[in-house]
């Protein structure tokens, strides 16, 4: 049996989602090792107890061997950070002997067998799922889903799978290096976190497989082409084939509007949504302060504006001048920027 290691990457605010991913993954693949790459630190009085969690192991950002970690973390907002570690985590798992590494976003729920991934990785180095695999016809869907893919990346990096082969390791190292330097939400400059980089993967790496099965990575952006049905035999189908995993992007919240828009009134979608919300509620992290992210505030507790992070990552002088950007007080970067904002 293949030595499959699956991981997700999240802050503690997404712990409920991680748990749902874990419990659904374990239902189909109890033999896979499931890791959480934690881009956060626990607040006082809160601790992860692995024996009660559906993930087997936790790797913290500190364990990924990233240079000048504090400065590096500061450059990223929470989404950027959680995606920026993915390449390093793939390398980490491959280096520790995983024969196959599968990444799944925390807001994914596994609803079918993923054995095909193992099989495909015995021949292919890298598996990617495109956002869309069928041309849209409706102008608004073209705008949302096709042009959206051009802006955000052809492939959805809620899923990527890598074999521990020469080609797989080569991809992992390249992706890690790029993400350590350039994993930002900066569409005008051609970047969208980890995702746009993988547009290059099929060109740079010869043994990439584009997984076109519509049962994988069903989400609001492809729902218009992949109607969901729940059959009398208990199967859940997407575009007529077994649903493997559903990507509940921004659920609960604005993602529900997008699912509604592209559901075509299909009740099965809302059944999935109701189930997912119930599972999130069941798996809520009790004792975690609302909106918690350890790297979201300066040392004095004030929220770090995105503009401060952008400034810091773009300017080597700032990074050199303030090696501890999270600090607060008279000599801190926070103070200097605040003074500027007040005076201007």
């Amino acid at each position, binding site marked *: 049996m293949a030595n499959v290691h699956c991981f997700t990457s999240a802050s503690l605010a997404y712990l409920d989602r991680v748990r749902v991913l874990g419990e659904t993954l374990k239902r189909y693949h109890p033999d896979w090792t499931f890791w959480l790459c934690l881009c956060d630190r626990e607040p006082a009085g809160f601790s992860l107890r692995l024996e009660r969690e559906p993930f087997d192991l936790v790797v913290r950002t500190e364990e990924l061997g990233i240079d000048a970690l504090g400065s590096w973390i500061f450059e990223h907002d929470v989404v950027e950070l959680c995606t920026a570690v993915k390449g390093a985590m793939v390398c980490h798992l491959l280096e520790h002997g995983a024969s196959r590494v599968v990444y799944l976003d925390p807001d994914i729920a596994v*609803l079918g067998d993923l054995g095909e991934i193992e099989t495909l990785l015995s021949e292919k180095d890298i598996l990617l799922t495109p956002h869309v695999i069928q041309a849209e016809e*409706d*102008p*608004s*869907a073209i*705008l*949302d889903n096709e042009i959206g893919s051009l*802006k*955000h990346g052809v492939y959805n990096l809620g899923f990527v799978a890598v074999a521990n082969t020469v080609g797989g390791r080569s991809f992992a190292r390249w992706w890690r290096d790029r993400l350590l330097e350039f994993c930002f*939400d*900066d*569409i*005008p*400059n051609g970047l969208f976190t980890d995702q746009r980089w993988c547009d290059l993967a099929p060109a740079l790496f010869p043994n990439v497989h584009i997984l076109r099965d519509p049962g994988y990575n069903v989400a*609001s952006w492809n729902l*218009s082409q992949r109607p969901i049905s*729940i*059959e*009398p*035999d*208990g*199967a*859940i189908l997407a575009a007529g084939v*077994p*649903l493997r995993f559903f990507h509940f*992007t*921004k659920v609960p919240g*604005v*993602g529900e*509007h*997008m699912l509604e*828009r592209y*559901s*075509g*009134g299909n*009740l*099965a979608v*809302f*059944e*999935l949504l*109701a*189930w997912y919300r*119930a599972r999130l509620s*069941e798996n809520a992290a009790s004792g975690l302060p609302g909106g918690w992210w350890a790297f979201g505030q300066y040392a004095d507790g004030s929220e770090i504006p*995105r*503009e401060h992070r*952008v*400034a810091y990552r*773009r*300017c080597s*002088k*700032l990074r*050199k*001048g*303030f090696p501890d950007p999270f600090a607060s007080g008279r000599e801190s970067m926070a103070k*200097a*920027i605040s*003074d*500027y904002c007040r005076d*201007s």
Partner: protein
Amino acid sequence: MSTASLIQVFRETNEMAGSDPDRGATAARNFDQQGPNESQRWRWEKTQVCRTRHSDALRRQLDALVPLRQRALAWGQAASSSATISRTTIEHRLCRGASSRLIIAISHDDYVLNYGGVQTLIGDEQAACNRAGWNYLHVSPAKPLPFLADPTAAQAFHVGLRLDGKSIGVANFAELVAAVAACRHKGLTAQFICHHLMGHAPELVLDLIRASGTHRITCWIHDFFTLCPSYGLMRNDVAFCGAPDPSSPACTVCCYGEERVRHVRRMETFFEITDPNLLIPSEPARDFWLRKSTLCHADAAVVSHARLVMASSSVGAGTNSEPRALRVAHLGVGATLKGWHIFRDLALECDGDDRYAFLNLGSWVPSDLPSCIRHVPVRVTPANRYAMVEAVAEARVDVAVIWSLCFETFCYCVHEALAGGAFVITRVGAGNTWPAIERNAPRQGCALTDEEELFQLFKNRDLERIVDASNRRRGALIPSSGAANWLLNGSTTAVAAADSNEPTRAPADADG
């Protein structure tokens, strides 16, 4: 770093930053604030049609879903708080009975205090057993639950007891078992009928069966609780599921799925030990149950909840002799499960069409009753069990729409509508609804595939033509003796014609 240089860096970098990566959020905000743009409109309008037909009510139902264990807390508030009676009291009451023969029957609630098809049948069964010289002990959980009671100690589980229809109190299960065992040692002969296990712990019920000395129990399949805690097999209370394998993805996303795994395991044990004779109220229900169940059983007989005898002559020309709107009715509870939302949408779509008048016949007024539907209060009680039949006739209902979303194992409504002289429109795949029409009055109803067909039928002139040509008759509903005939006489024609003195309305009167 100087403040001046920092300011410059900050200005430059801020000018370079800024994009809205969240296309979803932006688009959704725009959509919500401004409505659909032209390019979005066709899709939006398409989805609106679907919603009005089906999704709105079902989505409300989904939004209101409460986890099963939380529901149990609400149900538990109806628990009886009566003081418990002792083994000796139970023993005394059982042994003091007129007969040394005792039927022990269990079901999910007190059949005297609650009213419905199953409760009526149990009442009839009790009466038939009493007439045949058997006492009838009914056992129901003191604390109602929407699933099997968790395995528990007999001393901690309380049940309500009725002997021959009269309450004898609340007892803990250990006392009940001991009392039955003691009576048996004094020569009592017992038979055991399981109507429903909801709210019971099957492991304790097995103790009671053993104490009763019953060789083979009789088990009713009134609904599909033996297959799933969702007794109507309604996945998430919105869609008939067909009872797939409990490990299926469909059960994974169903609010009953987690409970079902334990439920099925306990049912398997119960049926394996009891190997019961099954009574099922219709052939479609029996066929479905046999196809979907792997539970052990010795036999599976069809025993109808009631028998419908149709009059030989038609309702007559009176109904439509003078031009008037066709009276179209929904019968019973205004519940989504019973297709109320479809009926409501149909009435709204036909609002202003003078060919139709819509009625709702039931005991309570649905909260979402639109002005285009007239509510006709009908309260069916044990004392007036044919109130619905009479109301259909008195309101001169031409068409009853019985649009159950679930699989009806018998469906009183269809029988009541036919007995009241209405033409019945039902849904293909709603269990016994269409087979009941086909068997009793094949020209007095039709089955449609889906809502689109239903709405189309009302839109064009087909309905008036079909109803005019339907040769509608009235009928009489004759109650069943439940398991009594089957159990005591070995007859599967367990209707009460032979042993009931109260046929409701003779077929000859039906035209009245």
